[in-house]
Structure formats: C-alpha cells, structure tokens
C-alpha cells in the first residue's frame, strides 16, 4: 500500500513541473518534460510493486530506455530545426 501511496504522491508532486510544461518557454518545457518522464519511470515501478505485478516492471524499464532515445532525438530536433 505504501508503494501505491508513494506513486500517487509523486503524481501529485509533478503538478508544478506540469505547470512549467504548459506555460513556460519551449526549452523550459523540455526540461519539465525530462523531469516528468523521470518521475513516471518511478511511478510505473512503484505501481508494479504496489499491485504485486512483476510483469508491469517491464513498462518502467521500457520507459527508462525510451526516455534516453526520445529525449536525445527531441533535444537534437529542437537544437537544429524547431
């Protein structure tokens, strides 16, 4: 139960970063996006542990891998073209 509560608390905790994502400049929004992605990896792991579903840990691992690739592609696109 503590793991689920921690996941919910983290989801509430990313609200300030969500405000930055919606309202700040483009590059500040990218920083907020990276922050939120990092937190979401933890949220998925916490929910998998909280509900005792080992298979759901794959989602956390997958998001951690995709965070690297997508983040780099996104940042490079912003640097050169957008």
């Amino acid at each position, binding site marked *: 139960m503590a793991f689920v509560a921690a996941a919910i608390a983290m989801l509430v*905790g990313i609200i300030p970063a969500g405000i*930055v994502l919606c309202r700040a*400049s483009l590059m500040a929004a990218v920083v907020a996006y*990276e922050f939120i992605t990092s937190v979401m990896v933890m949220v998925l*792991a916490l929910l998998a542990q909280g509900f005792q579903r*080992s298979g759901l840990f794959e989602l956390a691992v997958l998001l951690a891998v995709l*965070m690297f690739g997508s*983040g780099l592609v996104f940042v490079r696109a912003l640097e050169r073209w957008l």
Partner: protein
Amino acid sequence: MIARDIVADVLLGLAVLIVITSSVGVLVMRDPYQKLHFVTPAALVAPFLVALAVLVQMGLYENTGETCVALVFMGVAGPFLSHATVRAIRVRQTGDWRLGQDGRAVAEREDA
C-alpha cells in the same frame, strides 16, 4: 508492521520528498539552465531510493532486478540527456554552443 516495512516507508517518503521539492524547484527557477539542476535529483537520487525500498521490501527478487535495470538506464541516460539539453538551449540562445575567438558567443557579437 515489521522493520523492513518501516525502512521501505522511510525510503519511499524520502523519494517522494525529493520529487516534490525538485518539482517546485523546476517551477520557481528563472531560466532553463537553473531548472535543469532540479532534474538530476528526481532522475538519479529518487530512483535509487525507490530501488532500495523495493530491495528492502522484496529482497533479491525479480522485481528488485527489474527496478535496478531501470535505475541503470536512468543513471546512464541522465548525464547525456542533461548535456544534450544544455547544448540545445545554448544553441537556440546564441546560435552556436562554442565561443568565438574573442571569447563571446555569436549572438553576443551580433548584439554588440
């Protein structure tokens, strides 16, 4: 409640505290460079605490291993991603991430 539950709760509480304070830091800091400093605690320290909490709760088990794999990926990706982000911010602001021969960025030279 046994001791390992208490330890896991404390670790999770610390992780949540780090995420919330970092999130507020991302909100209140003025520019993207400053905001980026608050991504690292949430991307490295908090996941480490979460992995530790899972380890304390479950012991050496499949869940612990998968959490550690995610932690390793985040640990490897974080510095590269931060560097690429800072570089992109600088390129968008000054036109080039390098300084010119006079020690000033391209945009600074054009402003002068």
